[in-house]
């Protein structure tokens, strides 16, 4: 313990400027960040904020601080580790009785006291400022510390242990950024067969686990043995595996396990039927990936039970033609689709290689769609009159009416909510828009609605702040206008009802749809025209 405290005290004395800067930035963040929740309606000030890309100048400053705080951590971590650098053969401590577990513990103690504890305190203060009791969110606070460790601190420590100084480490981090950018570019250019990463948790957890284990191994190897070559090999292996995860998407393979096929005797929560209407046709379009086409198939969803909704998260398509010709797509992501009781229409798009398309194009095929669906159940409904100031919605967060920055008089044209540690639980929000002055009684109302939040159950999402902002994208917010008229925003009158309906996942399931004698649609005219021009 004496050795740990000696190294800790030495580092605290030596790196007080770095520590002070880090604490000052965190303090500034805690001070500035909540101020953007209390934006006054001052058009010039808000116009300046818009110029800076935020809703207010303080919001812009808060955005800068969210970037600066991790940068200050990077400098602090690098300086503390490089204080007794682990690469080289002339350091003063190499021939002193440093015991590596105590040595490592001392460095971790520095980070615990000057990085984690202030961060934890800052997160708690922000929760309090936002109207949430920090003690109610302790699991989330600790979970976020875990995420910050795995995603940010541990990689920074690992890179510090294999570099000789801050300059070298900066170069290495630049290399890492270039590597990530290169991988992202490659991923977007290469034909992937899908339109995104399916929303399974396994890939993210696996990536985080590999990153944390790899970086942890590097830290231990360096402190215990200082084998720099081995440590770099581990880092390269981690980078390779993470790249493979990005390209392979392990959740694709697990979709059939996570979303089980329905038993024959059970009632499907979302019977889906193909729309045969001539008003909506299937289409085929080119994608930016060379050699890949996207086929959009309109579908109708119906049969959702009362008090329920269905959230399709992904689907896969298979084609079968005479002569045993068969092809199956990867799981395709379905973005922002939710089905209520009644009939809902939507369009499902899947990617197909041009060569495969050409093989099936002239044939009548059987199109089989398999949907991965989250069946959700209404668990709570809260309705309240809209306040002109912020109001608390139990189980969701704290919401604030918004007014446009360019209006002279405050007018409620939207609602933004904030939640603790993560996005709120999946919630359907409804409001009543009006085009008339709020003083007019019984004016015509237009329903506005929005889905917010997610079905994830983790206690926190990775964040430098503990408060998440969720602007509600309410539908029908623009008024109807005729040609020559100026578009205008609708508004919500104070006191009009706002309803928050929260849903919880009941089941993950697969729903099948088979369409006989389907013909792959022709490539969209625009593209054909362009091809002919070439």
């Amino acid at each position, binding site marked *: 313990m004496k050795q740990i*405290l*000696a190294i800790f005290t030495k580092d605290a004395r*030596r790196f007080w400027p770095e520590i002070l800067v880090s604490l000052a930035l965190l303090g500034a963040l805690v001070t500035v960040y909540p101020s953007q929740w209390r934006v006054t309606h001052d058009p010039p000030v808000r116009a300046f904020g818009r110029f800076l890309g935020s809703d207010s100048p303080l919001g812009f400053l808060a955005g800068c601080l969210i970037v600066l705080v991790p940068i200050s951590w990077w400098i602090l971590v690098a300086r503390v580790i490089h204080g007794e650098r682990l690469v080289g053969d*002339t350091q003063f401590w190499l021939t*002193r*009785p440093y015991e590596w577990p105590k040595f490592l513990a001392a460095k971790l103690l520095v980070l615990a006291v000057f990085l984690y504890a202030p961060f934890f305190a800052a997160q708690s203060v922000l929760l309090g400022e936002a109207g949430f009791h920090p003690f109610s969110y302790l699991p989330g606070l600790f979970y976020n510390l875990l995420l910050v460790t795995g995603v940010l601190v541990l990689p920074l420590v690992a890179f510090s242990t294999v570099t000789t100084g801050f300059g070298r480490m900066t170069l290495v981090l630049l290399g890492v950024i270039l590597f990530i950018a290169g991988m992202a570019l490659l991923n977007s250019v290469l034909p992937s067969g899908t339109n995104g990463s399916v929303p399974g948790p396994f890939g993210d957890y696996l990536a985080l686990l590999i990153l944390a284990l790899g970086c942890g191994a590097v830290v231990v190897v360096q402190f215990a043995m200082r084998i720099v070559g081995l440590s770099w090999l581990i880092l390269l292996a981690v980078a390779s595996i993470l790249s493979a995860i990005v390209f392979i998407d392990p959740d694709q393979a697990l979709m059939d396990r996570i979303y089980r096929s329905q038993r024959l005797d059970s009632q499907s929560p979302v019977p889906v039927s193909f729309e045969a209407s001539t008003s909506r046709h299937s289409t085929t379009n080119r994608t930016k990936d060379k050699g890949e086409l996207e086929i959009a198939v309109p579908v109708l969803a119906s049969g959702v039970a009362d008090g329920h909704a269905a959230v399709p998260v992904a689907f896969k398509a298979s084609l079968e033609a005479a002569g045993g010709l068969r092809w199956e797509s990867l799981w395709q992501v379905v973005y922002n689709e939710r089905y209520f009781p009644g009939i809902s229409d939507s369009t499902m798009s899947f990617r197909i290689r041009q060569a495969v398309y050409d093989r099936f194009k002239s044939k009548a095929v059987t199109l089989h769609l398999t949907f991965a669906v989250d069946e959700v159940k209404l668990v709570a409904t809260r309705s309240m009159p809209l306040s002109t100031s912020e109001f608390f919605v139990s189980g969701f967060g704290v919401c604030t009416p918004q007014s446009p920055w360019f209006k002279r008089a405050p007018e409620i044209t939207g609602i933004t909510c904030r939640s603790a540690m993560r996005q709120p639980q999946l919630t359907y929000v409804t409001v009543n828009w009006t085009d008339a002055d709020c003083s007019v009684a019984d004016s015509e109302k237009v329903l506005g609605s929005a889905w917010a939040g997610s079905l994830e159950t983790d206690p926190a999402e990775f964040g430098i702040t503990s408060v998440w902002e969720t602007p509600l994208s309410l539908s029908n917010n623009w008024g109807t206008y005729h040609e020559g008229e100026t578009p205008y925003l609708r508004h919500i009158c104070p006191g009009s009802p706002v309803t928050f309906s929260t849903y919880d996942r009941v089941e993950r399931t697969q729903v099948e749809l088979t369409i006989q004698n389907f013909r792959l649609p022709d490539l969209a005219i625009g593209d054909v025209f362009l091809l002919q021009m070439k």
Partner: protein
Amino acid sequence: MMTSAIQTLSLSRSFGRTVALDHVSLQVPEGAIYALVSANGAGKTTLIKVLMNIFHPSHGTALVLGIDSRKVVGKAFNRIGYVSENQQMPDWMTVGDMLAYYRNFYPEWDRALEQELVRQFDLPLNRKLRHLSRGVRMKAAFASSLAYRPSLIVLDEPFSGLDPLVRDELIEGLIERAPETTIFLSSHDLAEIESFSSHVGFLEQGHLLFSEELTRLTGRFRDITVTLLGPSSLPTSPPPAWLQVEAADAVIRFVHSDFNGAATPAELAAFFPSAHDISADAMSLRSIFLSIAKSGRIRDSSSSHLLSNAKGPKA
């Protein structure tokens, strides 16, 4: 039975294709002041860094205070003091801070001895190490490595670039601790180590040419001058123990690397029957070093002889 503070067996270390140490076997007895001498770049620092577990050996083994060099970590350094001309120091600390900091690591730290060393080396406790001259920094390094009474002190070119006054102060400080410790130092300044070393090893291009007691070494090297009655010529096949054989007029001169006071004069008289006079003068360590280094350039015959003469040191 005499035990060894340091023992290496066929120790090699390579950096890529460069062989820095080539099968070095040596023993440093407890209580010895062992000087490892060589020209620059011959492998002294590499050998010391292998002993201190800063480098791992590529081949062979090294034992330091009975511990495999690969395991010289943590508490093992409670018994080892290490000072090197190239070692970085915690420059942001004052001398006092540094001593106070190191105090936490050594159970055997002797506060009285620390104060005595501070007085002896006239260390400015309140000045930062980065503001000190090279000599004072080296004295501070010595003080921080002696205050816990280590069993073994390893010094890598400790006196290089120091003024004579500081050098004498450091040597004096070392000699005062010599009875209770083993000192292993590397140097290419032969005059200074001759004054206090008990053993010496000679390293050339990674090879250990010899390793023995200093008195034995100086005893077996003699500067021989043979004066003949008439004009002389170089002997056609001189014995391998003769180095740098030269002839001028009636005089033949060479260095005898295996002189034996009882037998060698008679052997020389027999070899030179027409000799008018044969003188055998004792040589300084510097002269021995130079003659070996020069004869190393025409190494083929002499190296094998020198290596065959390399004997383990005797305390």
